[in-house]
């Protein structure tokens, strides 16, 4: 009851505050008047009576305030008062406010943007129903450390799991990210698709907006393979044609039936690039072919640990049953790892970089506040003498910091929003990461609020502490004279400048190393001459080019002749210097097979895999790949002669580390999983790097004329895939249509799935590091600007504080250069110490990062690369020096008379 009465009392006072205060004032006034009257009545003179009454009453203001304090809303009033005061103050110094708010906005915005990405990766539930029950199930090689031991799952194993496991509501198998060629009436287009089993769509809560999704009957044999389009591909390839359902599609020449179109909101695994889903409707019995993914939905109430335990039991049972499963176990992990595992480490590093930017910005603002604080000593002294205690002063200063922080955060949210949108759009994998879109949801906003709060404390606390301790006596003494701030003040500023410099050095060093890395990668020797080379990936689709050989398909002699004819015709084009055939193309990926050297191929699972590529004799010469030993192929290597091979340096190092490989034989496991081909090595050629940052993959080349029977998994086993490599005298991109025309003249049904210049491939392969390099460069530049602004600000305030002193010095005869030296002498040691600490930090961090982030492609450039570090140090030093030079020069040019007068 009492509590309720209190609340009512207080609330009434709050709402009718002015009336209540007036009431109180009236009451106190009447009290004093009554007292005065009594005094007069008892014989005092009027003035005496007044004086006695007031003395007896005590401090009226204090009584008033204390009474009001009882009402309990004092803190609200004070807060409002402080905020208004702070806002007025900031409005009066727009330069300071703008600098501070922009610094904070950049820092907080960057951190919030990075966090929103982390949010998608770690915190936000996946955009599917029941997301915490979704898992990925993989096979695992026992005895190897993860994650290297994790592999895909074979079809038979998947079927066994589905039959034997009780922990899953559903289990689906997926083969994703596969490029297909869609043959439309007038053109061929490359699309990206995936094979799925019927459980996939219901598991992820997908809906069809037209037609239907894949159903179990699509998987029965004898039916046309069913396909579901994504909304984006429906728009892009079929122009939103309403009658697309039921039509027939030719994928890689084979007819498929469109049964439905997915709704646009379905968040796909691999970004928006998925074009279609195809029914995985064939059976493979080979357990060693572990190339599919399995995702599942656990039954409600089970945990991953329990499921893992059950699957372990099943796996060991299978291992005993089937020799191919021996040595393989199971790993169950959350689906999140499947989607984001690769990116998690990288983005954590990113986040750390953004936090560094924020720290730099905060030290900047702290410094600015400190500098301002020095000029407010008089104001603080006046407040203190009016009765404000230290806590009160600190509360006021912290309110100012909080206001700055909130303004900064408001700007920061805008920056974050824009930054994330731009980043996702321009990043090469943006679509991959943004499953379900990157949004500023409540988690991100909550983080932003927390960040604003913490940052406000971070940069506001220390200046508040310093400034709220005014020396009353000194500050109020000489009106107009600015006191030179004491040693403690300088020390704090020094520390902050040092901290700033150190942080920005670390950030710049990181960015510099990545940029250097990218620069090197773009210039790395690929191993072949990539200038003016066109690569054309084609498929010969007519059935007369392939014949059945047992379970497999083999190139017919007619195909060989056709290819030869094409080669000759292309060579005859004016402007073409040379033509060759390259299996997977240089700089692309490569098809790998298990290969063993110096002994028969015993176990396919255990044998090392290397690239296995068919090439034509002209290939090496045309691309200027050096021949290191032996010979390359010639016309004499044909179907009839003995099988030969040419290996590259990496292959030689791996398989024949201490002997001459020429003349030795190797065994290659072919695609049908039983046949083994034996080839004799006749030569060694130089490495061709397929990715600029990685070492070249070991490769075994064999003549096109000796193409083995090949089994192409999936739907394109009826086509012969041939890659033409054409060296041109002029711009290869312009030759492309001419070559295309020639191709179609010789083989009218030829399918050109892609043509690209080698330089383009090289450029695209650096897309990722280039993007990250740019982003880091932007933030490093930001950090540099912040440091410059910070040093400039601090030095400017120093100068303005010491104007009086400088005036005296110059009046006493100091040369402007002496003044310059005086100002710089304070600043330079700080910068140097900051650089030293920053360097130390970078080196320490480099060691730590080297171990953890080995996959971030720093093989070319060591993290402690002295060249980069030296350049970065120099850059920071120069920028800081310039920033302090400008106000120092201004100081040196002060007119002593003016300085003495105005200060």
């Amino acid at each position, binding site marked *: 009851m009492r509590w309720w009465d209190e609340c009512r009392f207080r609330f009434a006072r709050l709402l009718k505050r002015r009336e209540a205060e007036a009431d109180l004032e009236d009451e106190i006034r009447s009290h004093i008047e009554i007292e005065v*009257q009594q005094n007069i009545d008892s014989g005092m003179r009027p003035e005496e009576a007044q004086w006695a009454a007031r003395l007896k009453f*005590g401090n009226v203001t204090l009584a008033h305030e204390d009474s009001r304090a009882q009402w309990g809303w004092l803190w609200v009033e004070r807060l409002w008062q402080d905020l208004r005061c702070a806002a007025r103050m900031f409005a009066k110094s727009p330069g300071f406010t703008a600098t501070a708010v922009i610094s904070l906005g950049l820092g907080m915005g960057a951190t919030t943007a990075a966090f929103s990405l982390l949010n998608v990766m770690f915190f936000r539930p996946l955009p599917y129903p029941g997301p915490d029950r979704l898992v990925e199930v993989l096979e695992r090689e026992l005895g190897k450390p993860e994650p290297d031991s994790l592999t895909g799952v074979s079809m038979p194993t998947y079927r066994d799991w589905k039959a034997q496991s009780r922990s899953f509501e559903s289990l689906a198998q997926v083969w994703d990210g596969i490029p297909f060629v869609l043959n439309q009436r007038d053109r061929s287009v490359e699309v990206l698709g995936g094979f799925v089993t019927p459980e996939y769509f219901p598991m992820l809560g997908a809906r069809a907006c037209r037609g239907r999704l894949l159903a179990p009957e699509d998987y029965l044999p004898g039916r046309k393979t069913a396909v579901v389009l994504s909304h984006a591909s429906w728009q892009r390839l079929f122009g939103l044609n309403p009658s697309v359902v039921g039509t027939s599609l030719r994928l890689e020449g084979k007819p498929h039936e469109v049964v439905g179109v997915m709704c646009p909101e379905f968040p796909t695994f691999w970004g928006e690039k998925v074009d279609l889903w195809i029914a995985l409707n064939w059976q493979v019995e080979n357990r060693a072919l572990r190339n599919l993914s399995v995702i599942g939905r656990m039954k409600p109430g089970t945990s991953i640990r329990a499921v893992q335990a059950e699957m372990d039991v099943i796996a060991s049972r299978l291992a005993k049953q089937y020799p191919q499963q021996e040595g393989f176990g199971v790993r169950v992990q959350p689906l999140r790892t499947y989607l984001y595992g690769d990116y998690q480490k990288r983005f954590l590093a990113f986040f750390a970089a953004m936090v560094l930017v924020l720290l730099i910005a905060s030290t900047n603002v702290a410094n600015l506040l400190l500098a301002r604080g020095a000029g407010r000593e008089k104001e603080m002294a006046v407040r203190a003498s009016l009765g404000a205690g230290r806590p009160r002063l600190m509360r006021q200063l912290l309110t100012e910091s909080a206001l700055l922080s909130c303004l900064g955060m408001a700007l920061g949210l805008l920056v974050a929003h824009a930054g994330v949108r731009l980043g996702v759009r321009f990043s090469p994998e943006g679509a991959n990461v943004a499953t379900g879109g990157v949004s500023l949801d409540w988690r991100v906003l909550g983080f932003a609020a927390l960040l604003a709060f913490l940052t406000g404390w971070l940069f506001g606390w220390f200046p508040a502490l310093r400034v709220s301790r005014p020396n009353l006596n000194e500050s109020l003494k000489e009106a107009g004279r600015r006191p030179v701030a004491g040693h403690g003040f300088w020390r704090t500023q020094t520390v902050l400048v040092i901290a700033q410099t150190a942080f920005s050095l670390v950030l710049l060093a990181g960015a510099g190393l990545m940029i250097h890395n990218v620069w090197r990668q773009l210039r790395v020797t690929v191993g072949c001459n990539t200038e003016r080379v066109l690569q054309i990936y084609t498929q010969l689709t007519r059935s007369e080019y392939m014949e059945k050989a047992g379970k497999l398909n083999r190139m017919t002699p007619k195909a060989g002749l056709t290819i030869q004819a094409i080669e000759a015709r292309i060579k005859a084009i004016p402007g073409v210097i040379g033509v060759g055939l390259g299996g997977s193309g240089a700089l692309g990926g490569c098809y790998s097979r298990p290969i063993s050297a110096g002994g028969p191929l015993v176990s396919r699972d255990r044998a090392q895999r290397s690239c296995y590529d068919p090439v034509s004799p002209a290939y090496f010469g045309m691309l200027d790949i050096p021949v290191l030993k032996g010979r390359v192929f010639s016309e004499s290597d044909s179907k009839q002669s003995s099988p030969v091979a040419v290996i590259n340096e990496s292959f030689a190092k791996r398989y024949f580390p201490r002997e001459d490989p020429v003349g030795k034989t190797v065994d290659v496991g072919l695609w049908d999983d039983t046949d083994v081909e034996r080839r004799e090595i006749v030569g060694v050629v130089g490495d061709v790097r397929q990715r600029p940052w990685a070492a070249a993959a070991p490769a075994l080349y064999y003549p096109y004329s000796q193409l083995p029977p090949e089994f192409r998994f999936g739907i394109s086993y009826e086509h012969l895939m041939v890659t033409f490599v054409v060296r041109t005298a002029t711009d290869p991109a312009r030759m492309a249509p001419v070559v295309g025309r020639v191709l179609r003249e010789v083989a009218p049904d030829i399918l050109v799935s892609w043509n690209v210049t080698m330089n383009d491939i090289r450029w695209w392969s650096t897309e990722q590091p280039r993007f990250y390099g740019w982003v880091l460069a932007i933030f490093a530049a930001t950090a540099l600007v912040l440091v410059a602004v910070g040093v400039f600000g601090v030095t400017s305030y120093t100068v303005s504080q010491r104007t009086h002193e400088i005036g005296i010095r110059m009046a006493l005869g100091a040369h402007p250069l002496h003044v310059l030296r005086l100002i710089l002498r304070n600043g330079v040691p700080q910068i140097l110490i900051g650089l030293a600490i920053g360097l130390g930090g970078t080196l320490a961090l480099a060691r730590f990062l080297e171990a953890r982030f080995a996959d971030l492609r720093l093989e070319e450039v060591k993290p402690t690369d002295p060249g980069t570090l030296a350049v970065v140090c120099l850059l920071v030093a120069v920028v800081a020096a310039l920033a302090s030079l400008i106000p120092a020069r201004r100081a040196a040019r002060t007119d002593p008379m003016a300085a003495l007068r105005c200060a």
Partner: protein
Amino acid sequence: MPPRSNDAGRIELLQGPLDMLVLRTLLFGPMHGQAIANSIEHTSDDALRIDHGSLYPALQRLQMRGWIAARWGTSENNRRAKYYRLTAEGKRQLHAETSKWERLTAAVVRIMRPAQKETS
């Protein structure tokens, strides 16, 4: 000696003797602020001297708790003044606290007395 109040306490007990003194003073009838202050000084034979101003926070506090009620009226010399009177709740509180206070002072006296015996 009288407590200076800084913020509204949410404690159940009387805050120091001042509140109790005010309640006691009002036991004899409604008074306005100046009269309460003078009354406390006089009845204590000027042993307790307080700044009259420090009465007002106490009055607010007591009002808030519902132990006294206020009304504007006219004073002896025809001036407007706010009169406070004790409520039933306040009277009950005063009796409760008075006995507590008496017990406390008795205890303190008992502790002090042996020391006095030694010094005498």
